């Protein structure tokens, strides 16, 4: 039975029997989950438990060994599906930012929408400037990534994904590479995004963020979802022993 705290909108991402092996190690051993429109799902788990692998399977940056990923009804693991088209609707934010160093901030933001004919250069620029202003970086439009701090880079990376007007945003430990004093500015942007109703899947070690912002938390362990629930359930009343000992370590 679905918990009433879960978003009840349509299913945005449906994962069924997801498996991923690397050579001879089995990292994901069968994952099933529905992510609904408006959900903010935090993925927690020990280092090496497969959190990144899970997230990267969602937009097929990692090719699943088995199972299916349905995004807005289309099975992304189907060879006939136009993956590039669907990826336009799935923004991704990386731990290492991955901004394009040879382009100015503005070019970073407009290159994909313009290249993929989502917008004219003028429209793309207007949109980029508006979003940059909202994360407080309008004055850095002509800078290059190397001139920004880590926190600023990550905010730009979020904006770059948003410029494609995605239906879901995937975050892989977006604050782990940041100096502690810059974590807040990035989390604030993400909170803002969640408040506006963006569907988000966030791999994070920031338990405070998970508790405050997400409506669901999943705990990955040994290649499966070992426990799943609302933040209150997961953090106040963990059931499985592995989760209890994990929380004891990180909290």
């Amino acid at each position: 039975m679905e918990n009433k705290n879960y978003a009840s909108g349509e299913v945005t991402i449906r994962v069924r029997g997801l498996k991923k092996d690397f050579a001879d190690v089995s990292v994901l051993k069968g994952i099933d989950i529905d992510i609904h429109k408006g959900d903010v799902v935090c993925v927690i788990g020990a280092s090496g438990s497969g959190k990144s692998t899970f997230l990267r399977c969602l937009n097929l940056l990692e090719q699943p060994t088995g199972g299916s990923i349905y995004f807005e009804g289309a099975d992304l693991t189907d060879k006939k599906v136009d993956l590039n088209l669907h990826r336009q609707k799935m923004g991704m934010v990386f731990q290492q930012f991955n901004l394009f160093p040879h382009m100015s901030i503005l070019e970073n933001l407009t290159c994909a929408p313009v290249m993929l004919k989502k917008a004219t250069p003028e429209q793309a620029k207007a949109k980029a400037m508006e979003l940059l202003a909202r994360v407080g970086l309008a004055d850095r439009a002509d800078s290059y990534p190397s001139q920004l701090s880590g926190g600023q880079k990550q905010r730009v990376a979020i904006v770059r994904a948003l410029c494609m007007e995605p239906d879901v945003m995937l975050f892989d430990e977006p604050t782990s590479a940041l100096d502690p004093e810059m974590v807040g500015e990035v989390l604030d942007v993400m909170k803002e995004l969640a408040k506006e109703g963006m569907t988000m899947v966030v791999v994070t070690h920031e338990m405070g963020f998970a508790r405050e912002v997400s409506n669901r938390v999943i705990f990955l362990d040994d290649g499966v979802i070992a426990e799943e629930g609302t933040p209150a359930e997961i953090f106040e009343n963990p059931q499985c022993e592995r989760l209890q000992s994990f929380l004891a370590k990180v909290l």
Partner: protein
Amino acid sequence: MNWFAKLQETFLEDNRYMWLVEGLGNTLLITLGALIIGVIIGAVIAITKYFCEGNKKLRIFNWLCDLYTTVIRGIPVTVLLLVFFYIIFVSVKDGVPVAIVAFGINSGAYMAELIRSGINAVDKGQMEAARSLGLSKGQAMAKIIFPQAIKNILPAIGNECIALLKETSVAGYVAVVDITKAATNIRNKTFDAVNPILLLALVYLVMVVAMTRLLAVLERRLRRSDGK
């Protein structure tokens, strides 16, 4: 006869210095032409290998690229030049275009390795970020990866260009009058061996130093455009 008069006799009589000027023109033409061909071939091979590696269906292209680099790198460029002039393009009487093609194809094999190392040096996250935005592999290569790769290896391409300039001095083997051949012609005509050869060495040296300087300026420009 003093040295100055000797110089005058060797280079000014019959306007022989013009031989050198024309030879220099051919040297530069061959270098530039070969450089362009080399970069194009190198880029095509490097990109082909990038897309075909690990793909069973396209393995044949990968194999063809390897064959090309192996064969070309195994043959001295002088021999390659002879092959092109006396075997492949027998009907072409003008040696300059043949030399451009031969040096270009030779250079392409080295450029391919250079460009490939440049592509591999670009952080893997760049391709992932591009793909996550919905760009195809080709679009990501064209707009994100390749420009960074070229920037990374610009110094090495510059060195290759300098090596190429010097290598063209063997073009005389196939009836091309490059600057080296021109100096030889003057030597044969005037029986003055010393001055033509010294001048020839000086001209190469000046060109190489000029190219090195130019390259340094270009690199600094590029770095500034990264805001570093």
